[in-house]
């Protein structure tokens, strides 16, 4: 199958829709449950930004590897993580994906290629490149992906990393989720221009800008980059423009802080990646309404199960603090 084909097949539409809904409903559940104060860790939600994770990860195979950031829920979910283990991690339980050691900012599931997330901005870019180096040295036909935000462009790791990855033609995708914000500071106060994809040019690699709310467009760009990487032609930088609906950390909205207006946020929410895909599916008659409903019900059930699992799981024993060091 030519993955970069511009047609959206029913098969792919279903895959993308499922992925988007898993990301969305998982975090909507967090919004609902957080006030109970049982999720006792800082959670950075990616509500509104799921198109990037779902689009990129749908273009990957299970063996491909991803590295993520403090805002790691959707990346890990879209890569195919078991929601039970993620939810249990949020609850600080022994059955969580890192046994209660990591929490919301460090989701992972190495069995499905989710290699972890750093709460240090820019921290995982080198790790993804190192993984790509290993893949290349071991002649594996796989790719590695670094997810990061627009803030990470300001770190040395981004520039040093792109330089090295380009030099060695490594099979790595640099996926920048440009939501225009680092906490409450807009990109215009931090960078001289906001077209992040243009940075690729100085490292002699392709750079693309895509609409992060258009999951199919993201998918196509990622699929092209994967093809290129697997052919040994080296890395690609993809800038996916998106919008963070909620506060930087936590389940609430943040317009009361005054750095953006309620109207702006509401306008952004109108441009929901899930809605956009549903419209495309409907207009082009790709899938029936029943199938979409079926997927939605399935995901709702999966989320409920994950919450039950999390709540019923035991906490770690005190001695476990010394394990895994």
């Amino acid at each position, binding site marked *: 199958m030519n993955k970069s084909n511009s047609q959206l097949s029913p098969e792919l539409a279903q895959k993308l829709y499922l992925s988007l809904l898993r990301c969305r409903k998982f975090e909507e559940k967090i919004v609902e449950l957080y006030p109970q104060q049982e999720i006792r860790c800082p959670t950075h939600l990616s509500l509104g930004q799921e198109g990037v994770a779902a689009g990129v990860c749908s273009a990957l195979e299970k063996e491909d590897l991803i590295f993520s950031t403090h805002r790691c829920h959707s990346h890990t979910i879209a890569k195919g993580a078991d929601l039970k283990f993620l939810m249990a991690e949020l609850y*600080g339980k022994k059955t969580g994906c890192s046994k209660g*050691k990591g929490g*919301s900012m460090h989701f992972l599931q190495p069995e499905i290629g989710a290699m972890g997330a750093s*709460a240090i*901005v820019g921290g995982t870019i080198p790790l993804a490149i190192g993984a790509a180096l290993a893949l290349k040295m071991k002649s594996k036909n796989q790719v590695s992906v670094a997810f990061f935000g627009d803030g990470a462009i300001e770190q040395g790791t981004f520039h040093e990393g792109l330089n090295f990855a380009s030099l060695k033609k490594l099979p790595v995708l640099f996926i920048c989720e440009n939501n225009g914000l680092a*906490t409450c500071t807009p990109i215009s106060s*931090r*960078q001289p221009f906001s077209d992040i994809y243009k940075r690729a040019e100085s490292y002699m690699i392709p750079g693309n800008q895509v609409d992060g709310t258009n999951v199919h467009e993201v998918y196509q760009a990622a699929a092209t980059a994967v093809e290129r990487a697997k052919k040994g032609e080296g890395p690609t930088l993809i800038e996916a423009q998106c919008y963070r609906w909620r506060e930087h950390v*936590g389940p609430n909205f943040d317009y009361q802080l005054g750095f953006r207006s309620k109207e702006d946020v509401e306008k952004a929410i109108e441009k929901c990646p899930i809605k956009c895909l549903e419209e495309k599916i409907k207009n082009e008659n790709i899938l029936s309404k029943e199938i979409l409903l079926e997927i939605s019900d399935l995901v709702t059930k999966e989320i409920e199960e994950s919450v039950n699992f999390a709540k019923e799981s035991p906490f770690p024993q005190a001695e476990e603090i*010394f394990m895994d060091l």
Partner: protein
Amino acid sequence: MRELKYKEAISEAHVQAMLKNPNIYMMGVGVADPTGIFGTTIAASKCFGKERVFDTPLSENTLTGIGIGSAMCGLRPILIHARNDFLLLTMDQIVNHAAKWNYMAGGKLPIPFLIRAIIGRGWGQAAQHSQSLQALFAHIPGLQVIMPSSPYDAKGLILSSMESDKTTICIEHRWLYEKSGPVPEEPYSIPFGKGTILRKGKDITLVAISHMTLEAKTAAEECSKENIDIEIIDPRSLRPLDEDLILSSIKKTGRLIIADAAWKMCGMSSEISALAAEKCFPYLKAPILRITLQDTPTPCSSVLETVYYPTSMNIVKAARSLFSGKPKDDAKEFIAAKSERDFSGPF
């Protein structure tokens, strides 16, 4: 005297120093955003505007170097990090450059530079957002390291750093931010290398650092019911360290406990123990005891956080053991006493 919260005392120190000296400027990720580093930079930002108080890109190491360069040329930078952990990105500029430049220049280029960073304990901050790294900096000749525990000390020490010709690392604890205490309105300074006695006592010298001073006070009250009279010393600055104050107290009590919510190995507690062993060994009547974090990274799960952080109960047990002759509870005996905690919520 008027009372201020810790965070308000810091804020006031910034404004007063910047009013006095136009060469002071302030930068860092989020210093000019609406939340203003937990409220400590909002007033300065309002008073002095974007020229002197500005948000930065997420480029901590390079910004540190920019601070150093500007300090060489007549400015007095203040660089602020919302987490201690981000200092680790700046180790090259702090250790290789700020701490050494004046020495390598034969004293011709001092680097007057204040770097503030906050320990983000609690609410599952986990391994990369809650570290207590004072020992890394206290290790380095050429730096000053302060850890004020009261609003009074926070204002005084920050104002002193603004008069100093050296680079100062100020490490603050998030759980101190809402605590109130008396703070004079006018500017004042507290000399570096001068500790303070928080409670007089005759039986045990308890050196407590930063937030552990609060646990120490609770512990001392508890112990006084058992006729154990604890003297609490807050060194306030770790480099230089007030050796005389610590040593004279040990000479009086003959017993030493150190409470530092950081790692034990090569930590401040090691340094203070070594000081006692080197300089007043004959006065010691019992082994030195140390109350520290568990020897692991910070776990996220709230049940493991409880195990990770020492509390007043750990201190009480240690104090008792010095008199009962029984060995101190070892690190693996967990005391889940509720630590004083008015901090919850996502940040």
